[in-house]
Structures are given as C-alpha cells and as structure tokens.
C-alpha cells in the first residue's frame, strides 16, 4: 500500500505544484487547488487512525509522504496538519476540516492556561508559528497554572497575528495571546508525544522534509551539471564539479540514513501514540536526525549553488524553492547546535562506555 500512496502523492504534487503556484505562494497566495487535492486524497489525515475517521497510514509511511511533499516544495502545511490532526484526534477531539498548525515551536516561548468558568484563559506570546494565520486552526501547547500540560485547538481567525515569513517565504507568524478565553471542550490534556511541547515532533518532521528538499536540490544540480557547458565541456566533466557533487551526495546519504533511523524508531514506538518512556527514548534518534539533516542542508545548499552559478540565484530557476527551504528548515524547531548539544549532554552524562550500546543496536 505504501508504494501506491507515495505514487499517488507524487502524481498529485506533480500536477498541482506548478511554477505559478510556487511563485504565488511566495506572495502569500494560498494554493487552493493543491490543498483541496491533498485533503481529498486523505493525506492530511494520514496520522489519524481509521477508527477515528482518518487514513491511518503507518507512521513511517506518513513521513515518507512528507518527504515527497518537500521534494516537490509544496507550499502547504501538510506536515503540520498531519501531526496536529493526529495529536488532536489522539486526545479524543474531532479534527476539523482545513489546514492545521501548531505552536509554540521553540523553548523560549510558552503559553499559560488558567481555569475559568466553562473553559480556560490562555496567555502568552509565541513567535514563528508555521503558516500561522494562513492555517485554519492552531493546536496550542499550554501549561496550566498547576503545571499540567495541555493542548488547545483554536480557530486561527480568532487570534491576534503579526505576519512574518521565513527565508522560503513561508508564513511564520507571531501570535499574541492576552487572556484568550476558550471553551473547556477545546482543551485536552497533552498526549505523551507533546507533553513537553512540540520541539521533538517538529524536529522529526523538518528532518524528513529536509531529506526531500536535499534530494530535489541534488536533482537540480545533477541536471544542470549535465546540461551546462563551460570551457567547451559539460560541467559534469570537471573533476572539481564531480568531487563537489560526490561530497554532497555523501551528506545526502548520511542525512537520509539519520532521518530513516528516526522514522523507523518513531514508527516502531507507535508514532504519535508512543508512551512516555518511548518518547524519552526517541529523543536520541530525533536529535541525530535533525542535527545531521540540518548540517547536510547547509553544505548541500552551498554546493548546489556553487554548481549552478548565477543561474541558481534567479527567481526563474526553481532551485531556490528547495534551497531557501533548506536554509529555513534547518533553523526551525531547534538548529543543529541545539540538537547536537542535546546529544552531547546526554552522551557525556552517561559516560563513554555507555555510548556503544546506543549506536550498536
């Protein structure tokens, strides 16, 4: 089944992620047809179990769809919607139509929830929520005054947004909550997967997306090197170009292996349904995946631009749809340094002898 879903997704992206759609998205035009097609194919509900009315894909298959959407540079919050829908459904909530997103997305921001008659009052300031006001509903992570982690699903048009964009011109809006009242049934206890916030899940999806974007960036570069001639030869015949691209391929292969590792362990642990203990164990592979894909992103983006020369800088050439995403995504939900430090602290705290067991099996 996995192969069929992937093929269908590829076809869908091929048809709907046109140059016009991509150029429009850079100017904040929502890709209505693309989104409708994605919803109709059921992809947004990939991580919602069938018994809850979803598609119920195996978690690693869902991540593969995310990679393909990133390969296509589809300008939509598909990954965010999948995860938010899956989490909300896991809490017993009904998943609404339309696109979803989630926040806060970094450790510095936090939302507090105070119990009120008939519901909760939310306070906080959150930067860089992916797609923000462009998404239909936002899954917010909040902590109650007595320390309980919660999630709340709130229609984004009821919220106070300031518009921001990342380097790929994807919306990354700022949200100001000052005493927002939400009904009791819009707030549920946070599942184990996001008890401490969305950073690990966000890192997981961005690492998968980066693998897709890395592959596309390399595709562009290989094509260009084969077609473009300089000094009477095709670029691909220069040893310097060959070795540059071989090095990029190495980073791509390693990044893919790192992302595969996280996907496999996440899937084996039950995906979004992983329990608290499994979630703690997943910190390591997810940190490895985000750190390694993020490092590859910077190196590969530099190499593919070097190969493309001036042409790669133009809006006309599609390369930038992949590279601007790589430059953005590597920083989102914790950059390499953040996750490297997590790994380093974990490993050092356990001592040298304990490391091998984690690597070997």
């Amino acid at each position, binding site marked *: 089944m996995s192969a069929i879903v992937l093929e269908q997704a590829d076809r869908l992206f091929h048809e709907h992620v046109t140059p016009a759609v991509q150029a429009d998205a*850079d100017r904040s035009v929502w890709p209505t047809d693309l989104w409708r097609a994605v919803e109709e194919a059921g992809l947004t509900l990939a991580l919602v179990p069938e018994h809850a009315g979803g598609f119920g894909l195996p978690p690693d298959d869902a991540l593969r769809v995310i990679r393909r959407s990133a390969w296509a540079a589809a300008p939509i919050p598909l990954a965010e919607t999948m995860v938010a829908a899956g989490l909300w459904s896991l809490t017993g909530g009904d998943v609404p139509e339309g696109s979803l997103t989630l926040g806060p997305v*970094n450790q510095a921001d936090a939302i507090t929830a105070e119990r009120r008659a008939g519901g909760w009052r939310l306070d906080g300031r959150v930067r*860089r929520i992916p797609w923000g006001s462009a998404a239909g509903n936002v899954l917010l992570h909040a902590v109650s005054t007595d320390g309980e982690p919660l999630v709340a699903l709130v229609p984004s048009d009821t919220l106070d947004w300031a518009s*921001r*964009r*990342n*380097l790929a*011109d994807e919306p*990354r809006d700022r949200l100001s909550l000052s005493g927002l009242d939400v009904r009791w049934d819009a707030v549920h206890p946070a599942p184990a997967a996001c008890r401490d916030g969305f950073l690990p899940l966000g890192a997981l999806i961005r690492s998968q997306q980066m693998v897709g974007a890395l592959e596309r960036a390399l595709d562009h570069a290989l094509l260009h090197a084969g077609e473009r*001639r*300089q*000094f*009477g030869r095709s670029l691909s015949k*220069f040893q*310097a*170009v060959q070795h540059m691209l071989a090095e990029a391929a190495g980073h791509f292969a390693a990044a893919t292996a790192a992302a595969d590792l996280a996907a496999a362990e996440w899937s084996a642990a039950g995906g979004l349904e992983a329990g608290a203990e499994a979630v703690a164990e997943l910190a390591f592979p997810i940190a490895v995946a985000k750190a390694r894909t993020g490092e590859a992103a*910077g190196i590969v*983006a*530099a190499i593919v*631009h*070097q190969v493309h*020369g*001036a042409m*790669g*800088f*133009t*809006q*006309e050439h599609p*390369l*930038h749809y992949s*590279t*601007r995403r790589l*430059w*953005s995504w590597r*920083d*989102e939900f*914790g*950059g*390499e*340094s*953040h996750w490297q430090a997590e790994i380093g602290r974990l490993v050092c705290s356990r001592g040298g002898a304990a490391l091998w067991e984690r690597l070997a099996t």
Partner: protein
Amino acid sequence: MQGFRFNPTALPPEAEAARTRVRRFLAGELEAGTYAPHRSSWTTFDAGFSRRAGAAGLIGMTLPTRYGGQEQSDLARFVVTAELLAAGAPCFAHWVADRQSAPQILRHGSERARREILPPIARGECFFGIGMSEPDAGSDLAAVRTRAVRTDGGWLVTGSKIWTSNAHRVHYLIALVRTGDAGENRHGGLTQVIVDLSKPGVTVRPILNMAGHHEFNEVFFSDYLVPDDMVLGAEGQGWEIVTSELAFERSGPDRFLSDYPLLVELIDRVGPTPDARQAVEIGRLIAHLAPLMRMSRSVAGLLHQGQSPEVEAALVKDVGTAFEREVPEVARRLVPVEAEMDSGDDDAADRFADALAHTVLDAPAYTLRGGTREVMRGVIARGLGLR
C-alpha cells in the same frame, strides 16, 4: 616554494587622513539615518548615498586631479573602501565605477572618455556595470560571442550580456565584445568597449533574484554604435586588459568584509561574557579576518607600485570569500535565532535576525561573483606551477 608577495605595507599619512575623512562622513550618515547597517552592504544600491560620498571626496580618489580625482594612493583608497565596508555602507551604485571602470578608462580610454566620464564618476554621479558574462559564457570569457563589426568611426555591437548587475540603473557598462577571431590561444579577437546605456540599440531585461529583488539583468545589443573613442585600448586587446586588471577587482576588502556588519551584530548579541563555544568561534573568525586585512593591504601596495599581482589577488579572493561564507554559518550556530525576512522590528534580536537573513541569502554569491572559487583555485594552481 616561490613565495607570494604579501609584503608588509605601511600606510602613508594621507591614508590616515582619508580615514579621518571617511569616518566623519559615515558618522554624519548614520546620524542622519540614511541607511540601516544591519540591512545593507556594499551590494546595496543607493544613488543618493553615492552622490554624497562623491561630494565628500571618497570616490575616484586615485584619479588625477585634472579628471576630478585627488591623486591619492591606492592605499588611501584601500582605507576608504575598508571603512565603508565595515560600516555596511550602501555603496553598490558607485562601486564598480570606483573599483575598476575608472582605473581602466584612465589607463586605456581615449582622452574624450577620460574627460567626459571620470569627473562625474568622482562626483558620485556616474555609475557603471560590467558586461562580461554571456548566456553561454559564464566563467569562460573566451567563449564571448557578442560581436562588434567595424563601421564608420566606430563599431556596431550585436549580441547580449547576462548577470549584469544594475544595468537598469547605471549609466555605462564596460563590455567585452568579439571584434575578431579567437586564434590559437582562444584569447584573441576580444575588445573592451564603453556602452552608454542611454543611447539607442541597447535594451535591458530584468532578472529577479531568489529574494525577489532586481539586481541582475540581461542586456541586449542590436547594432549599438560604439564610437572609436569609446573603445578601451587597442582592438583585440580585451583579454589582456581584463586579465591584467583582475587584481583590482579581486583583492579588495569587498572580498571578505561583505558581511562584516553581521559579525558586529553577532558580537553584540553574544554580549560581553561569551560562553566557551562563542568565545572560540568568534575568536577564530577574527584570527581569519586580521591576516586577510594585511593581505589585501599588501596587494593595494603592489598595485600602487604598478605591479599586477594576479595570484596574490586570487588568494585574497579565495581565502577572503571562504571567510565571508563562514560568517553567517557561525552566527546562526552561536545564537539560536531563526533568520526572518524584513521583520521590521528594531530590537537587538530582530536586528540580528534581519542581518542574518540577508546574509544567508547573499552568501552563496560570494564564491561566484568576480570569478568563481574554481577559477580562483585554477589561477592559484597556475601560480604554484601546477598547470
């Protein structure tokens, strides 16, 4: 090994005087708020800024006084250039004219070209672009196909140039065109000409860059008439002129200070008590930058002596642009701020994020513009006797 010529070069007093002058000028600009250092660099085009810089005597400084210059040394110019870069000043309007067009016209231009063009360059009122690359000749200049055909009193040019920065807003280009056959060594038959963009026969098509900005252009020539006195040097001498003067283009501090303002923002953002990683990584950047300053200044000294240090210039560009490329990477590793386009806010965190965003998108160009890294390494390898 045959050593490189990076000899110590003391600054003459006039250079220190020029430093005082440019600093006074920049202080005035900053006070007046004419530009935002964290969102600007030498590739920011601001004709007004350039006019004021010209009025302050900061452009065409090495030109003879009879052409509007001040007959100052290349070292004084080096000091002024470096100060403008360090301040993140928006210099792109006059940059090419000051760096390479004016010296080329002075050396190889007709008297008419000198008299007509050099004084307005020095006043910061006349701007230039470079017409080298063509759709099928990027790094490979010998593949130039834009053709100039003899006519009465001049040449008729037909063809096109690409990646011409600012062609839509400068006054002239210096274009490399084919006036004859390439010959055995592939380098013959090329000639440099001055193109007046206000004249008929030339059209400009914008090429937006990936950030959506308009800097590049494609320029089309259709029987564009170049009068004889707008030819640089002799017919067929184009390759020699271009290559002999590459040192001007490649060795300047614009090859390692493009993102200096980000380095300043980084230091301020980290604050006075860096952690172990911040101290080491910032210290490493500065241990790279300080010798680059010395290398670049040495080349300015050689240029001043009339030498043509092509290999040393390639070394400055290769080492320098590698450094420039690293600055945003180090910055984002040391401070967990995500780059954000035009946040419009103005606290320190946002200034840093803004500077970072612009630099991340610009940085890939550092090792391409003005000769790719691969071309530089080829030049250095030749200097090492390897080819």
